[in-house]
């Protein structure tokens, strides 16, 4: 055993890059909400980028190490403290047996990634160590961590330095979430479509790993239709369809919900489009009440953004000499 949970914070889970390949069976991707930060945390402690780490949301856990290791904390600005002394985020530091890692108040962002050299060694379930709490699958006993839990860690090596601010990626204010209008865009009026992009929305407090709900924008006006066989009576209802990762559904036309890593895979709400994969990490760093806008892009722009994100990771690897 190498990491003991003294207190779990609000919700800390074991996550890796996720569990793709089972969404058609209703088992979501899971994995880190900010996979850029997750990858960098692993790079800093000399792990494979897809090793399992701890994801903490809004409030840090308190952990005790029972064996020496190298640790790094990335993601939102949740200031780490080693034995009560401030230490830097986005930087590898050694810990000794008996050392305690705790955190100050969250300053910005929403989620921190705590990587330990060797990776968190929980059983692999359907190809991943990620926790899917709703399905009680993966991670540590399929659930968020509790006080008294002990986590095994693999064999690890030395730290790789630090990552400066200009190589990190966090959302702006307001966050700009690029999206491709989708299959059901035709259900809303042209004027409603313009307002959707013009409005500044705010993250609702209930936003979580399943979906991020946004409030404060204008309700959508729908194009009149004859209710299709199999669809609900609300104009936002459709005949049940698959829900892609990143899809934006608007139940009742009022509050858009972006489906994230632990989302359901299908249902009967129309989707106005999808947030592009390059910007899903940014959503994982949004606090309740923080402002966000949706920005329309084309498929070519979405693919260029994906390349930019891969280039940003390549710059971090080059900086760390990996």
């Amino acid at each position, binding site marked *: 055993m190498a990491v003991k949970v003294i207190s779990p914070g609000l919700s800390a889970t074991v996550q890796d890059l996720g569990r793709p390949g089972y969404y058609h069976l209703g088992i979501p991707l899971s994995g880190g909400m900010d996979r850029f930060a997750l990858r960098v945390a692993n790079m800093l402690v000399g792990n494979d980028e897809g090793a399992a780490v701890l994801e903490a949301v809004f409030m840090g856990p308190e952990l005790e190490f029972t064996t020496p290791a190298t640790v790094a904390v990335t993601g939102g600005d949740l200031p780490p403290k080693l034995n009560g002394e401030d230490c830097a985020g986005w930087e590898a530091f050694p810990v000794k047996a008996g050392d305690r890692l705790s955190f100050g108040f*969250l300053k910005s962002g929403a989620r921190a990634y705590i990587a330990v050299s060797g990776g968190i060694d929980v059983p692999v379930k359907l190809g991943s160590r990620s926790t899917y709490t709703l399905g009680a699958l993966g991670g540590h006993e399929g659930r968020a961590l509790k006080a008294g839990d002990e986590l095994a860690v693999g064999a690890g090596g030395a730290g790789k330095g630090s990552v400066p601010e200009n190589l990190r990626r966090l959302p702006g204010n307001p966050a700009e979430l690029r999206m491709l209008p989708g299959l059901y865009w035709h259900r809303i009026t042209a004027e409603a479509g313009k307002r959707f992009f013009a409005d500044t929305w705010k993250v609702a*407090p*209930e936003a979580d790993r399943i979906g991020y709900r946004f409030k404060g924008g204008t309700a959508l006006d729908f194009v009149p239709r004859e209710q299709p066989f199999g669809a609900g009576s609300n104009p936002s209802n459709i005949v049940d369809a698959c829900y892609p990762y990143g899809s934006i559904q608007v139940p009742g036309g009022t509050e858009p919900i972006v489906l994230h890593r632990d989302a359901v895979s299908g249902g009967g709400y129309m989707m106005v489009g999808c947030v592009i994969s390059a910007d899903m990490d940014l959503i994982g760093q949004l606090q309740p009440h923080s402002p966000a806008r949706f920005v329309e892009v084309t498929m070519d722009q979405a693919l260029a953004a994906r390349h930019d994100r891969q280039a940003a990771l390549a710059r971090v690897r080059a900086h760390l000499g990996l």
Partner: protein
Amino acid sequence: MAQIQSPLPGTFYRSSAPDKPPFKADGDPVAMGDVIGLIEVMKSFHEVRSEVAGTNIRFVTDNEDPVMAGAVLAEVD
């Protein structure tokens, strides 16, 4: 004077339900461990407990206000 800070970002509530009286009124005494409010985030409510004791609490954040982590909710003398 001591400050009681919110451990979480979310929405601050001073009572357990809309039709219930607040946990504490301005001027009330506070014991260590007393619940002074709730923070709503991620579909659940989290109690905020005082880590200090005092004879006079004054709220500086209003009911249903959005708060950041570390926001001062109340001051205690």
